[in-house]
């Protein structure tokens, strides 16, 4: 069983959704990321999404755009991102880590190079924002060949006709983007998320993690009642933006509030 499958299975066994957390690698500096990742784990994160900075994060809202720019201004390279991942793997042998980002940084040296380098760094999978199923040969094939998860995104616009194509070749988990929009700005109504998750679950056995606009423990709990995982990104990245190199403790404390809410969420219903 892969680290990703284990993490979702363990959360399910504990009667809660997995907590999936995103930060941008190298924000505010490559050297500061390790402590922030450790804080995510200490606070109770089950899965880490490590963002690869890009000059043109066109699917991201203001918070993650700013994080990308801070990281690049600090000189973060692809080698730095892979080194951060490799060091994380040495410290945390069991916590799954996926790289998330855009096509150009991921494929610059060729998809095989990237997939192999990521595997060698102990990475479990990748989420590429701007490679849809139609362009799978640009990255997905290489990820699968390297034994990595090819985490696909489904959105409110992914209709029933299209969903099978999105699921074909997807692995690790399915990331449901609950809002048609950019990251960090708004949250979907719980009812629409519930309906969407039910639709996705009918079509795949992959765990469904739901994200976009999740900020408060209450929002996380509401999604955690219906989904296998809850993704939180912009709210964490904003803490890093506010506290910079001292962000680890505020991040840990914030993650802990989310985790507590997820642990309690399904018990309240029952």
């Amino acid at each position, binding site marked *: 069983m892969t680290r990703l499958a284990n993490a979702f299975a363990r959360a399910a066994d504990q009667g809660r959704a997995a907590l999936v957390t995103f930060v941008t690698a190298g924000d505010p500096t490559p050297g500061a990321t390790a402590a922030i990742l450790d804080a995510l784990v200490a606070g109770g994160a089950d899965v880490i999404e490590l963002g690869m900075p*890009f*000059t*043109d*994060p*066109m*699917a991201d*809202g203001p918070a993650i*755009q700013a994080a990308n*720019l801070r990281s*690049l201004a600090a000189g973060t*390279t*692809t080698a730095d991102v892979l080194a951060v991942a490799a060091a994380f793997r040495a410290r945390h042998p069991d916590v799954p880590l996926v790289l998330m980002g*855009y*096509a*150009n*940084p*991921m*494929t*610059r040296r060729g998809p095989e190079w990237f997939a192999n380098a990521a595997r060698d760094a102990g990475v479990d999978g990748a989420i590429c*924002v*701007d*490679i*849809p*199923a*139609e*362009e799978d040969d*640009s990255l997905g094939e290489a990820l699968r060949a390297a034994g990595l998860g090819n985490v*696909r*995104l*489904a*959105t*409110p*616009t*992914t*209709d029933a006709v*299209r969903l099978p194509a*999105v699921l074909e070749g997807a692995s690790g988990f399915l990331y449901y*983007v609950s809002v*048609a*929009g*950019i990251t960090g*700005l708004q949250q979907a109504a719980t009812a629409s998320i519930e309906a969407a998750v039910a639709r996705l679950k009918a079509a795949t056995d992959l765990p469904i993690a739901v994200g976009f606009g999740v900020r408060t423990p209450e929002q996380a709990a509401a999604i955690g009642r219906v989904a296998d995982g809850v993704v939180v990104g912009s709210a964490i990245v904003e803490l890093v933006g506010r506290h910079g190199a001292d962000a680890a403790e505020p991040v840990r404390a914030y993650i802990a509030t989310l985790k507590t809410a997820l642990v309690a969420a399904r018990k309240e219903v029952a």
Partner: protein
Amino acid sequence: MTAPNSFRAQPDDRGHFGQFGGRFVAETLMPLILDLEREYTAAKADPAFQAEFDDLLEHYVGRPSPLYYAERLTEALRESAPDGMGAEVWFKRDELNHTGAHKINNCIGQILLARRMGKTRIIAETGAGQHGVATATVCARFGLPCVIYMGATDVARQQPNVFRMKLLGAEVVPVTSGAATLKDAMNEGLRDWVANVEDTFYIIGTAAGPHPYPELVRDFQSVIGREARAQMLARTGKLPDLLVAAIGGGSNAIGLFHPFLDDADVKMLGVEAAGEGLDKRHAASLAGGAPGILHGNRTYLLQDEDGQITEAHSISAGLDYPGIGPEHAWLRDIGRVDYTAVTDTEALDAFQLLCRTEGIIPALEPSHAIAAVAKVARAMPRDKVILANLCGRGDKDIFTVADALGVKM
């Protein structure tokens, strides 16, 4: 490399021009892109759509644009050419279109598509402001609300066009991210689109972006080359020997080139912006870039070894973009079209040369093409014919040019 049977059969059904092009967009946009492709395929086969497009081009845009023999420019170039050299220079006068550039051709086509699809809100990005003005124009013409994203740097250097867009009823949103130029405006346009997929149509201004945009923009702009080909045959009884056009994203160039691609004796030259020089800041993605993925397509990009996009620079806001349309990337790699680059200084010289020899104030974008024409015409025999696309007029650029020439206005 084996030559294909036709150079005009691209892209394939996945929107690929060889290894270039494609549909590299977020999943949220993918269903919309597929809808647009279906609608465009239907529109192409619909005589009523073509008739409405042709009618608007004739009566609203003012087509066909003239084909003009630049006699005094030709003579001026011959004066400094070796004996017997100095090709005839002809211009396709797309700067005489309504709104002053070729951009309107594409905007007419896309707003008709938007109406077919029932979209009620239009967005666009703009660099020099020509595409923004053309988009605002068609939105006013059809009564649709319009939001234009424009880099804050470009807002500052293209004030006349900003005012035009506002007069036409558009909302102009200055974009401050990155270098605050065309690339950043396109990022912001995509962010708007992904948040407003239900009602919004994105009128992309150049022959780039996710499939089917490179194809449909090319098709709408190909009116330039179709007219020019017929006009040239009617006037001279033969085809031109060389076509020349400036390239930012490359829509005016592909519009001129495409109808001639299977005319084996017609050579073609695309002219990128070399800015301060190819060893300094420039916007020449073919000359100084490498294949990568940005804004929905795989193409040549200015980028570093990690795939971070590097800032483009050109005195011409319309060429200030770190990428190029995917069909140009393909035409360059298969060798059908040659590409060169012209500096800011060379473009400024050509700008003034055309003002004085022909009484035409060109935009800074075609000034790059004219600079390249000035170089190659002197090396071609007198009986050869060069046809360059005069894709925009220079009214919008007079402040930039005055500033570059040290003139206070």
